[in-house]
């Protein structure tokens, strides 16, 4: 008997139709009683991995042992050793909760008395005992998830597979399910849990060890703490007072980048993905135009309603820029338009402008993106210099927040570049995803 409950060696899965390499030669082991998270963006191969371990798919190459049984040769024993909660709901809505569980128990060969006791027990565990006789179609998403977890536990598996257990659930429900998962792992039976997720916080909160996957490969595997340690240095988030002259921000970013020790500067804080300020990037192949020139053109356009209308009509990007612009800017623009001019404006923008004129829009936090995030060695030492640079440009700082890198920073560090790559040839990425989806069906 080994300590490991799951052993995966050189596992590879190729979906033959379309030659998609979903899992590319991965190896890992999971110890008894561990919570292990597979973290990765959509299409990274997490679900394929879990499906192979659950004997739902066969591997192309490599070996996988669950509870010391080979998934290919001893699939029945593997199946009895595992409980699984699928990514998408898999309960029968036309049956009552109790009936769903009963069917499961019979399929897993449980005897009648044992069955009834156990069903009551798991229902209590997920706080659904008073809803046992409700049709599952009347359950909320969170209740369905909890029922599925209960079902996964019914036959006392050694390992519980959770495939995106909190996908599409509200924060409170997520929290509840997290608590349940932790509770399970802490209880005397100390069940091993393999969880796939693309939520950083979920992996961070739950997992003893995290395995980051992308494009079917494992790119990092360690405890959350150790992963974070790999990103040395600090993250500094700076919130600025309301900025009237937004064009100064790129200049500040450039200046801050020159400070020794600064590794990366980006708009917006690392906490929460706030929509970015119109982030103007010069398309490749365009002649070298200095940013100042572009800003001058933008200012010119902004001051002339006719030119603005032209821009909105001809360049779809500018529409998005306007809709994402901060409220003061929208107000400024709205003032330039009278009734007559409004008629020429494209529909979606006109609606927005009318709203602004009537004062229906309220400034929210999201509206004013005026923060930058800097990752930097020795943050404390460099902080005064950074602040000075910002001061020199005549901007006022509202708050400064320096912290250790979060798991999200780590994730972006490993996976971020490739996501950006896929963005540039977006269609290719989507094609691959569609291909994979279809093949799984």
């Amino acid at each position, binding site marked *: 008997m080994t300590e490991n409950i799951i052993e995966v060696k050189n596992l590879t899965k190729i979906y*033959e139709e379309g030659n998609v390499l979903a899992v590319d030669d991965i190896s890992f082991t999971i110890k008894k009683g561990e919570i292990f998270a597979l973290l990765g963006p959509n299409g990274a191969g997490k*679900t394929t991995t879990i*499906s192979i371990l*659950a*004997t*739902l*798919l*066969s591997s192309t190459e490599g070996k996988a042992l669950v509870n010391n049984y080979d998934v*290919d*040769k001893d*699939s*029945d*024993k593997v*199946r*009895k050793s595992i409980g*699984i909660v*699928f*990514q*998408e*709901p*898999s*309960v*029968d*809505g*036309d*049956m009552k909760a109790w*009936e769903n569980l*009963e*069917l*499961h128990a*019979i*399929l*897993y*060969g449980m005897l009648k008395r044992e069955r009834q006791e156990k069903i009551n027990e798991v229902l209590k565990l997920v706080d659904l005992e008073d809803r046992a006789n409700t049709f599952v179609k009347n359950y909320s998403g969170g209740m369905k998830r909890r029922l599925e977890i209960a*079902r996964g536990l019914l036959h006392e598996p050694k390992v519980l597979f959770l495939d995106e257990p909190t996908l599409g659930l509200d924060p409170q429900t997520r929290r509840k399910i997290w608590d349940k998962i932790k509770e399970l792992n802490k209880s005397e039976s100390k069940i091993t849990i393999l969880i796939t997720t693309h939520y950083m916080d979920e992996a961070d909160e739950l997992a003893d060890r995290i395995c980051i996957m992308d494009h079917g490969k494992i790119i990092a595997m360690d405890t959350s703490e150790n992963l974070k340690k790999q990103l040395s240095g600090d993250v500094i988030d700076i919130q600025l007072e309301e900025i009237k002259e937004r064009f100064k921000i790129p200049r500040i970013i450039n200046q801050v980048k020159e400070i020794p020790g600064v590794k990366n500067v980006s708009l917006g804080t690392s906490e929460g993905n706030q929509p970015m300020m119109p982030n103007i990037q010069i398309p490749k192949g365009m002649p070298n135009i200095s940013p100042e020139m572009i800003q001058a053109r933008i200012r010119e356009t902004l001051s002339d309603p006719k030119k603005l209308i032209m821009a909105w009509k001809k360049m779809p990007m500018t529409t998005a820029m306007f809709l994402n612009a901060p409220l003061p800017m929208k107000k400024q623009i709205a003032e330039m338009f009278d009734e007559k001019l409004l008629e020429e404006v494209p529909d979606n923008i006109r609606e927005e402008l009318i709203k602004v004129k009537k004062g229906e829009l309220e400034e929210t936090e999201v509206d004013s993106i005026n923060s930058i995030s800097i990752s930097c060695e020795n943050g404390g030492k460099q902080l005064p210099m950074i602040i000075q640079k910002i001061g020199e440009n005549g901007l006022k700082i509202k708050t400064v927040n320096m912290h250790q890198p979060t798991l999200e920073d780590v994730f972006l560090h490993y996976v971020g570049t490739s996501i950006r790559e896929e963005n540039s040839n977006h269609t290719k990425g989507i094609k691959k995803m569609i291909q994979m*989806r279809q093949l*799984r*069906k």
Partner: protein
Amino acid sequence: MSDLNIEKAKINYNAVWILAKRELLSFWRNKSRVISSLVQGLLFLFVFGIGIGLSFNPIIQGIYVDPRAFAGSGIAAMVILFTGIFGGMAIFRDKMFGFMKELLVAPVSRRTLMLGRTVGVALQTMLQVLIIIGLSVAIGYFGNDLNLIWRVLLIIPVAFLASLGIVGIGLTISTRLRDMQSFGLIQTFIVMPMMWLSGALIPLPIQITMYNPFTYSVDLFRFVLLGVSYFPFWLDLLISGSFGALLILIGARSFNKMEISQ
């Protein structure tokens, strides 16, 4: 595709029973389905029972048959076709709503799953047939001979046998089906030809109907309910039985090959 080493001969009968029960339960709970099948049955019985009598006198093997009994037995057999195929295709619904994954990951053989579903749908079909026969008996289509009780009791196993092949068709189709749109196609290209070319509602020359396996099920129904049939009853039994066995086998094969969608 891959073979998943799950074709184990062992059949878990408890599992078969619970799966069949699930099927029956869903039939019973879906009251609209029960009511609509009642109303539809009545309408068919009314129109064909009266219509056939007005247009011609059905004659089987030289024996004159009461047109209302002819219609009643044909419609009862026809019900098998509709309920069986679409019942078998309910697997598709399980596939869509993810429940299939729960079944496929369970430590039971696919044969068990397949059998459970087939038995469930066949029982449900049997119930529907009994409803139609009950209705036609109630409105006096089969006369009021005391022999009728035996005939109706005998129709129960016959209905079960006849539905196996039809459920098999439904299962085979639904394991290969990828979207809901194909339902109309199946109606047009499988259900309708099988129904109209079987002589269930309107008698057709044997030369046309003999190539349709469903004809023999209809004929068996007539033999049991009316005592007369186009073909000898043993031929009906043989063809219905082997057709059922064949389709169940094909259904089981495609069920085994089915991979799980995510």
